């Protein structure tokens, strides 16, 4: 009973937070679309018909209804919220298809690129960080540490275009565009891997530096452990926690990065979907994509949050140090304190 109880107490608030963020995203996008000046339906119609002068009022009203932009603000809000809870993200103003349909069609492509980019980026930075820490020469370490900021400073569209220029046009090795062939994923993924890896590297190397400066690393070295052992058993495990946290940040970054990369490489994906939706002033699609992206991010953040107790023993429930003056009788005998904190149930004190 207590096991399930503590698990619930740990998980419940975080799940609640997740639900709250999803609701808040919906509200924010809802407000953004309606509060900012400009009439999206009119604009969409204008884009479709080519000019903004002649507008059929009936058509306008029908479109408004379709986009959920009729009725009072509150009515719209509740109606759309209701639809959202049943998985209905509305209908596209431009294509007439349901937003869910459109998104589902392009998600696999984006996921492939984003996933591969994450893997490449994280693995490369781990290797780089390892080398930077183990390398015996100071100049090499300094050099390796200076490289990643470059990865962030170069915009993805520039990297992508350069990669195309080199690998597709000059060397003819990889395709420059399209989504059909398997290796069309490679160049886009590598393009995104640069900034992703760079961001992760900076967080990781900072965490490593902090761990290296700590007291327990001193103790480990004073015990006579070699560099590799100290790094592997002491530094790495403690540098993991802040690094895992940054993965949430990276997912957010990737979601935005796909817009640019898919445009550069002419791939079908969420990013391209949004770009064309903006061009067509198709607010339903934009809103739908944003909600989906926010949900994915919040889900990732939730999973990361839930993984903390697994990584860091200090965040696990229950045990804390016994109070320093805890012994009930003051004696000069070795500390006769309870196994677990004196205020918790002694029966539950079985060691793990």
């Amino acid at each position, binding site marked *: 009973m207590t096991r399930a109880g*503590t*698990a619930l*107490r*740990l998980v419940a608030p975080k799940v609640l937070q997740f639900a709250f963020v999803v609701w808040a995203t919906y509200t924010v996008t809802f407000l953004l679309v309606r509060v900012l000046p400009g009439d999206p339906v009119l604009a969409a119609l204008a884009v479709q018909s080519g000019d903004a002068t002649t507008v059929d009022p009936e058509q306008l009203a029908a479109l408004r209804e379709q986009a959920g932009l009729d009725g009072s603000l509150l009515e719209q809000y509740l109606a759309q919220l209701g639809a959202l809870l049943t998985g209905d993200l509305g209908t596209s103003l431009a294509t007439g298809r349901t937003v869910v349909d459109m998104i589902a069609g392009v998600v696999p492509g984006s996921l492939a690129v984003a996933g591969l980019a994450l893997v490449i980026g994280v693995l490369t930075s781990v290797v780089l960080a390892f080398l930077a820490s183990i390398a015996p020469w100071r100049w090499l370490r300094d050099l390796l540490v200076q490289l990643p900021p470059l990865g962030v400073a170069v915009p993805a569209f520039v990297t992508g275009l350069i990669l195309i220029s080199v690998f597709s046009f000059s060397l003819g090795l990889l395709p420059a565009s399209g989504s059909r062939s398997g290796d069309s994923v490679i160049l886009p993924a590598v393009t995104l891997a640069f900034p992703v890896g760079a961001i992760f590297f900076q967080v990781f190397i900072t965490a490593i530096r902090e761990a290296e400066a*700590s*007291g*327990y690393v*001193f*103790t*480990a*070295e*004073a*015990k*006579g*452990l*070699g560099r590799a*052992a100290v790094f592997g*058993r*002491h530094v790495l*495990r*403690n540098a993991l926690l802040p690094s895992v946290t940054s993965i949430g940040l990276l997912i957010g970054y990737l979601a935005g990065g796909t817009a640019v990369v898919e445009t550069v490489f002419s791939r079908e994906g969420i990013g391209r979907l949004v770009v064309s939706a903006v061009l067509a002033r198709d607010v339903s699609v934009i809103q739908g994509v944003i909600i989906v992206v926010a949900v994915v991010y919040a889900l990732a953040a939730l999973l990361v949050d839930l993984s903390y*107790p697994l*990584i*860091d*023993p*200090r*965040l*696990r*429930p*229950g*045990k*804390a*140090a*016994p*109070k*320093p*003056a805890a012994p009930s009788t*003051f004696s*000069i005998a*070795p*500390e*006769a*304190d309870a*196994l*677990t904190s004196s*205020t*918790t149930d002694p029966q539950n004190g079985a*060691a*793990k």
Partner: protein
Amino acid sequence: MSDNILEVSDLQVRYRVGRRRIEAVRGIDLTVPRGGIVALVGESGSGKSSVSQALIRRLAGNGEIAAGRAVFDGQDLLQLPMKRMRAIRGGSIGFVPQDPNSSLNPTLRIGEQLVEGLRLHLKLGREEAAQRAVRILGDVGLSHPEARARQYPHELSGGMKQRVLIGMAWSCEPQLVIADEPTSALDVTVQRLVLDQMQQLAADRGTAVLMVTHDLGVAADRAEQVVVMRHGQVVDAGPTAAVLHAPTHEYTRDLVAAAPGLNSVRLTASAAPVATEASHPILEIRELRKTFTLRRPGAAPEPFTAVDGVSLAVPAGRTVALVGESGSGKTTTARMAARIETPDSGSVLLDGQDVTTLRGEALRQLRRDVQVVYQNPFGSLDPRMSVAQIIAEPLRAFGLGGRREQLTEARRLLDAVQLAEGLADRRPAELSGGQRQRVAIARALALSPKLLVLDEPVSALDVSVQQQVLQLLVDLQAERGVGYLFITHDFGVVRQIADEVVVMRQGRVVEQGPAERLLSAPEHEYTRALLEAVPGTAAR
């Protein structure tokens, strides 16, 4: 085969800061006889920690050994290739690091951290090493060692962690153990137990010990020989009794005189105290209670009673010392007395007036009569303000006088705490710990309060500076007739400044009474244990 396990000659250590080189150790000599215990004593900045780190060749990143020899069992440690050095570290020379709270890997179990060294140096198999680790935990006095081995560092108290570190240092049967301030972070009773343990281990196994400490009392109790360092040089060295009772160097003499454990006597004011009408106590607290809610991840919130029915009184112009170890509730009690916290029940009377439930503006007005001096000289001053602004802030808060008058008053207060007027425009970062604490005292006195609550005001200071600040407090009390509620864990300090003593433990008052009586003839067993645990008591 010499009699000495370690012979250090002309050791010099430097640190590179930007382009400059700062000399931390300027050529010291040191010997540790086989199986002997040597204390290396010095205040902050003396270079003593650098010596211990240099011996195992593990200085901070920007440190370097400039010269010298350190002959350990026939080999010069400072010339060995790192590979040989690693074999010696942990294997022949054990090291007990300073801060138990940050010296253990929080993500590894205790047993695993012990096993590391055992497998490396003694080449034990996994099973054997695990069993040996459990035995070591038992040897250092931990109860239920098998269970302890499977716990993580955060599940142990400071004293227990220090024992683990001691066990780790002794685990591979070294010939020498270097201990860097092994007990500074611990309560005095725990300190005594831990040092007893170390001494026992050393005696049983014939290990030599080089103990680095700032506490002369500890050196007096435990070491056979003492080496006194100051500004990177050895100032005095020899058998403990000789150095402490007949110091050759003036510095050592001052250090011995200032050491609270060794030599404390009630300080007297330089001038005659101002007469105060003693009709009622300036502070009276009755049956104060305070309960907090402990929240741990995944557990239901639990109530924790920090203060459980405490009563005491501070006579006008006198000092009451509130003594206890960590967790005793003394700090919470003092905070309630100063009305920073609101008691759950009970009453606080200031100068006869009940101030227990004051809030808002009325509470703010109370600040003119009660002020606080905090423990940490680094944290209680806003780093962005100048000294003059800091001292004048309470005057400004109550609109007392114009800008110029406030500055003049600030300078007057600087003078009263014996700080040079030139410091008025400096920032806290440019001052030493002792100077900052004087600024904090000046600030607290700006409104001429009737009562000062001082929370361990000298614990973070070097011993010689402590003495000066305490003398200053005594003088100021005589001048101004301010009452002091003085919180401390250090009985040496209590001896120097208290008129009355209140001993607390686990939220309750265990004993209270006039200082002279309580210190010489304590009635309660806990008070007696506290007094006996003060390092240096044995030597007095």
